[in-house]
Structures are given as C-alpha cells and as structure tokens.
C-alpha cells in the first residue's frame, strides 16, 4: 500500500521536535553561527527529545525500534530549526547507530547503553577525507591487518566534536572495502588537528584528524573479526543528510513566503507578483517531491529492499540540488534584505551548499 501520513507516534515526535525547533533552536541559530559556538544546554535539551534513544531497542538501553522513516521525519524537523544544531544533537548517533546496525553483540553491550542512558556526550565518527573527489567507497585512509589487530593511517576532515570526543568511529579502507574501527581518544598516533573554518554550519565544531600508525586491537573492528556491510551505514547517512536538506529548505521557503506576503511593492504585496509567486510555487513543489523521495529511500532501507542504496543516493542527489535552488531563491525573494545577516536566509543558503558535502556528518 501507499500511505503518506506519519503514524500517531511519529506525529507526537514531530510535534515535540517542531516546538523545540521553532521555540529554541531557531532563535539561537543566528548567534551560534556568528560566534561559531553552541549553547550546551540547548544541545542537551534537543538530546532529551529522545530521537536517538527512541531508535535503540530496550535491551541496549533505548526505548524503541530503529526506523529510518522516523529518523528522516525527526531530522527534517530539527533542521527546520537549525541544521547546525541538528547535526550537533544527532552527533552521538554517528557512533551509536553503526554499532546498532553492524556491531557484534559485545560491542552493542559495551557501548550503546552508556551512550543512550547518559546526557548528551560527544561521540563521533570520521569518514570524510580532504579531497575534492572524496568517495566513501574508496577511502584513502588505510587499515592493515596485523597479528593482534589493525594499523590505521590517513587523514580525515569534518570530524564533529573531535577535540572533546568520548570515542571515535573511524572508517578506513581494508582490502578495498570501507570498514569502521573504534578508536578511543588518546590512542597513540591519533591526532586531533585544527578546527576547520567553514562556509556554513559554523557553530558545528568540525576538526581535522590524522591517523599515524594507529594500532587498535581486533575487537575494535566494527562488527567483529568479519567486519560489516558498509552500505547500510552510507545509505543511512545519505538519507539523513537528504532529510536535513528538506528541513533546511522548508525553513527557507516558509521564511521567504511569509516575507513576501508581508512586504509591499508597487502598491501590492511582493507575493502578489507572479515572478515571486511562481518561484515560491516551484520551491514548494520541489521540496515536496524530494521529501517523498527521501521518505521512499528511508522506507526501502527499513524494508531491506534491494534498491535501497540506489534510492538513498538518488534522494541525496535530489536534496543537494533542491536545497541549493530553494535557499538561493529565498535570498533572492528577500532581495537586499536577504543578503543582510539579520535575516536567516543567507545563513541557510550557506548551509544549503553543504548538503552535497555533509555525507558522514549525520545518521538516522
């Protein structure tokens, strides 16, 4: 069957997140971006909404079952408030969800409970590498098998909260396939580099990370000795970023729409001009279409459909183009005022460009 209405449970979650997004996240976004810093209290408040907790089963300390569809709905709603804040709130999932999807029993027992049952803590992951044609399926960071474990070498970028991380999940190329490795902070050879200056999501602390002959024991390989399927992790991340792109675009669209309905020009409202009204119509249409594509990919992932990876890729591709188009037009509709940092649309446009590049920065 086709169905396009969130369940009662999902609606409750969406409503709670939306209240937080509009009342708390959005008002703090401007200063967070300017000062390149979050309020920890705000992240904690977002964490307490329980998005991650609700997707971890009870036996590991959570209170629900994982659903990519629910995750996509939640991510969209968070990004409606502030996408940088959304990344921060969802960050522990970068470590916890791969362990849920692909970890062995011992890893799940060891890590999940302590993440889920505590306050927000900076658990993180390192996937992205500093190359223009970065390819998650062809990592330059290398893992080599030794007698008692693995040795990792390579450079990572875009590692959230690396300076204060409780734990890292780093991805490396092991005999041609991308595999995750748990690397506790302080491990010899693991060096946290500079915080990276960014175009957008400036409040989100992203760091360089070098791995120089990092030795880790066998049990730290995600999934145990046989490793894991990387696709599930990549798909989840692509869908997460697509959903965040949809939420961000919705924010920009709604802001531009309300502005256009309020502002006068030549004796009528700006929105009464077809050139503006048509832009808004196309923005709304694209958002809705890519939103459905994102939901479909998430649903396929939940159902274990064969094409899930392809659709996650298509959804992310679509969201990349859509978010840029929508945020660019939002600035255009506000005209000169859109270019001024008092209005959030220029910030959203800077964030919007990142949808293409944020794979690996969120999971659902």
């Amino acid at each position, binding site marked *: *069957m*086709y*169905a*396009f*209405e*969130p*369940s009662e449970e*999902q609606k409750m979650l969406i409503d709670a997140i939306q209240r937080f997004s509009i009342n708390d996240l959005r008002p703090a976004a401007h200063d967070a971006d300017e000062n390149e810093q979050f309020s920890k209290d705000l992240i904690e408040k977002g964490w307490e909404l329980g998005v991650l907790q609700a997707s971890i089963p009870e036996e590991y300390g959570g209170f629900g079952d994982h659903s990519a*569809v629910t995750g996509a*709905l939640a991510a969209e709603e968070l990004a409606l408030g502030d996408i940088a804040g959304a990344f921060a709130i969802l960050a522990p999932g970068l470590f916890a969800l791969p362990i849920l999807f692909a970890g062995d029993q011992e890893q799940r027992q060891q890590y999940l409970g302590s993440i889920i049952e505590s306050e927000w803590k900076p658990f993180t992951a390192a996937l992205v590498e500093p190359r*223009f*044609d*970065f*390819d998650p*399926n062809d990592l330059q960071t290398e893992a080599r098998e030794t007698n008692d474990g693995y040795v990792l070498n390579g450079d990572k970028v875009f590692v959230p909260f690396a300076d204060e991380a409780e734990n890292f999940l780093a991805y490396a190329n092991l005999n041609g396939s991308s595999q995750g490795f748990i690397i506790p902070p302080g491990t010899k050879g693991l060096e946290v580099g500079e915080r990276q200056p960014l175009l957008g999501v400036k409040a989100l602390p992203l760091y360089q990370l070098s791995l120089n002959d990092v030795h880790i024991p066998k049990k730290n390989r995600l999934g145990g000795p046989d490793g894991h399927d990387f696709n599930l992790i990549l798909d989840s991340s692509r869908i997460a970023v697509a959903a965040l792109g949809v939420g961000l675009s919705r924010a920009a669209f709604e802001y531009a*729409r309300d502005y*256009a*309905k309020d502002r006068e020009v030549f004796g009528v409202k700006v*929105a*009464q001009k*077809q050139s503006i*009204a*048509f832009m*808004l*119509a*196309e923005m*709304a*249409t*694209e958002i*809705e*279409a*890519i939103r*459905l*594509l994102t*939901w*479909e990919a998430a*649903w*396929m992932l939940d*159902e274990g459909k064969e094409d899930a*990876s*392809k*659709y996650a*890729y*298509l959804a992310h*591709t*679509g969201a990349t*183009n859509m978010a840029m188009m929508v945020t660019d037009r939002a600035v255009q509709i506000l005209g000169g005022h859109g270019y001024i940092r008092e209005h959030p649309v220029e910030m959203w446009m800077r964030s919007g460009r990142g949808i*293409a590049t944020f794979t690996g920065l969120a999971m659902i």
Partner: protein
Amino acid sequence: MIEFETPKPIVKQKYLLQTVAEEMMRPHSRHFDEHEHEIPWDYINFMHQAMQAVGAGSLTPSDGDAKEEMPEEKKKKKYPPIGYQSLAFMLETLSWGDVGMYLVTPGGGLGAAAVEATGTPEQKKKFLKRFQQEMPAFGAMAMTEPHCGSDTSAIRTTAIQDKETNEWILNGEKIFVTAGQKSLEEGDGLVVVWATIDPAAGRAGMRPFVVEAGTPGVKVTKLEHKMGIRASDTASIVLQDARIPYENILGSAEVPKEKATKGFKGAMATFDATRPLVAATGIGVARATLELLKEMLAQEGVNIRYGLPRQKLSNVERDVIDMEVMLESAWLLVIKAVWMADNRKPNPLEASMSKVLAGDVVNKITQKAVEIMGPIGYTRDHLLEKWFRDAKITDIYEGTGQINRLIVARNILGYRGSQLR
C-alpha cells in the same frame, strides 16, 4: 503510516498492461505518428474487449454505480480505495507504450471523468453505461474556444433553456477537443461541453452539458495537425442550435443570486481529479525515454555508476542520474495526489504540483535524451525524437504549467484569485 509498497492488484494490472504496451502499442508508435488521423483500431478494439472482460467499462476510477448492485457483504471494503492510484499506474504504463495511442483508448476519457466528478447518480448511470456496450465508445471534454484557453471563465458558448420542449439549446464553437472526432463520429460517445447559462454571471454561470453523439446541430469542423501525440485527434466542434434534453446539465440549473462560482468549481474539481492523471501520462513518456536512453548508452559501453561522487562521474552519467531523480520524485508526487483523491482528501495543491513537476520533468528528460544521443537521437529511426515532441503537450493541456503554478501559489499563499492574478 508512511509506505511505498505498490498495492498487489496494481502490480498485477501493471504486468498485464506492460505487455499491452509492448505488444500492441510500441510496434505501431511510429506508424501512427507518421500517418496522422489514421485510427489505431486494432489497439482500440483490443482495449475495449480487454476492459469489458475485466468489467472496467470506463476509464474512471469510481465503481460507485456497480457497487450499488453488489450484495451487501461485498460492499464492505477490506481494501483501502485505490481506484485513482490504479488509474494513474494504468495511464503511466499505456503512455510508456505510446501516449498518442493511449489518448484514443475507448472508455470515456475526460468526458466520463467530468460526469463522474459532477454528475448525479442517475446521470452517471445514464451516461456512463455506453462505455460498457459491445462496441467501443469515446468521451471528450470541450472547454477551450478560439478566443480563450486558460481563461476558461471567458467562454462564450451559450446554453439557453427552451421551457416548451424542456431542452437546452447550445450555440458556440469549441476547439482543441481531445478525441472530439471519435466521441461524436465513431460510435455512441459523448462530449461534455462547457457553456454559460447566464453570460452576465461569469464563472457562476458556467455549466457542463452532456452532448451525445448524433445530436443534430453538432459538427466536427476541423482536425488539427500537431507537433506530437498524432495518433490522437484534436477536433474543432461547432454547435449550432444544438438541442439536448434538460437532464443533460451536470449540476444545478440555478444561478445563485449571491456571488458564487459553483459551476466553475465543478470544472476545477474535475481538474483536481484529472491533473495527476495527465501528469502520470507525462511520467510514462519520461520513463520510456530514460529506459531507452540507458539501453542505447549501454550498447555504446556507457553504464551508469550509481553511488559515486559526482566529481568522478562523466557528464552523461550526471545527466542520467539527475533525470532519474526528477522522474522518481515527480512520480511520487503523482502517487501522493491520487492517493489523496482515493482517500477523499482535498488535493488541489498536490494535483497542480504533480502536473507542474511532471510537465517540467518530461520535457527536460526528453530534450536531454535527444541531446545526449546526438545525431542518433535526432533521427526518426528512433523514438526519442517522437517522445520529445509528445512530451511538450504535458505542460500545456489540462492547465498549462503556468496556470498550475498559479494554483499552487494561491494555495501556499492563502490567496484568492483576485489577490494573485
């Protein structure tokens, strides 16, 4: 719930229709494109018999009339309603075969859809029965006039009541009537003609009238020569003192005193139902194009590598992947719009959105496909150039892309027509 599983009955139906599209339509696509106004009777007769066999008389989603005669226990639906969804899949698949030929599928077309959307139960019974007879019959809707297209409220065709004979007398000229010739001259069909019963009342005076084949004073005066969809006839119809029974008016004959636009709204309600379906036909053409393009590229050794960063893809691969994103997301918008129609949720926004996007997408995809295949794509040896021509109409009929953008804009802005013209 959020789900994307194609319902089982639709999967079954689609499997059958795909065979029809491959066997009965594709092999003849080029012939009927090159021989405009020749009628594809083999396809028509086959479809007519097939639809009679499965009890689907007209190409309308409602089974309201048939249901009344069903025993009580069968009326209780175990399955959620999927009539419009099933129709969208059907139209998509047939248009994948050939959209021009699809447009001459017997069974009532837009005419039946208008009766379905605005008629009383008696009218539905009376007018739709003809599509379940032994011989195929066609239906059409006549709205556009020589002096007005998108501005439908400006129509001049009049309907005047003759109280003595209890008839309506229709006078005027209609153009661009899809399947108009077949509806009036090939079998016992009908055309739903929009006319005004009170020219001073504007939109409030607009009413649809059922004009049956064989009505004296109704004449097909011209068949258009078109860019694409050439298997489908586009007719001009002149009504000269054409008399039809009083009961053939769809909706009330009263023109309300206060400012009301019920007649116009009837037309718009029809469009809410038919726009996603027209969008579905565009999706069918787009899918046909993308599939053939990928096949042709594969023959040249170009296989699309999904999952790679865009920086590692060739330009052609990027184009194809973008086309796939457009196609799938536009199709989902169509499905959402018909799903809403099936579940009796008002869908004017989604209906117009789906039409806007499908109109864009099918044009972008067919244009890009011809471009990518270069001199091979440009020749009539392949169907890509035909689909390029067929695609354009999707953005024009059943409300141009611009009219539908207006409707979307008014909906999202909460504006009335007077606030956003």
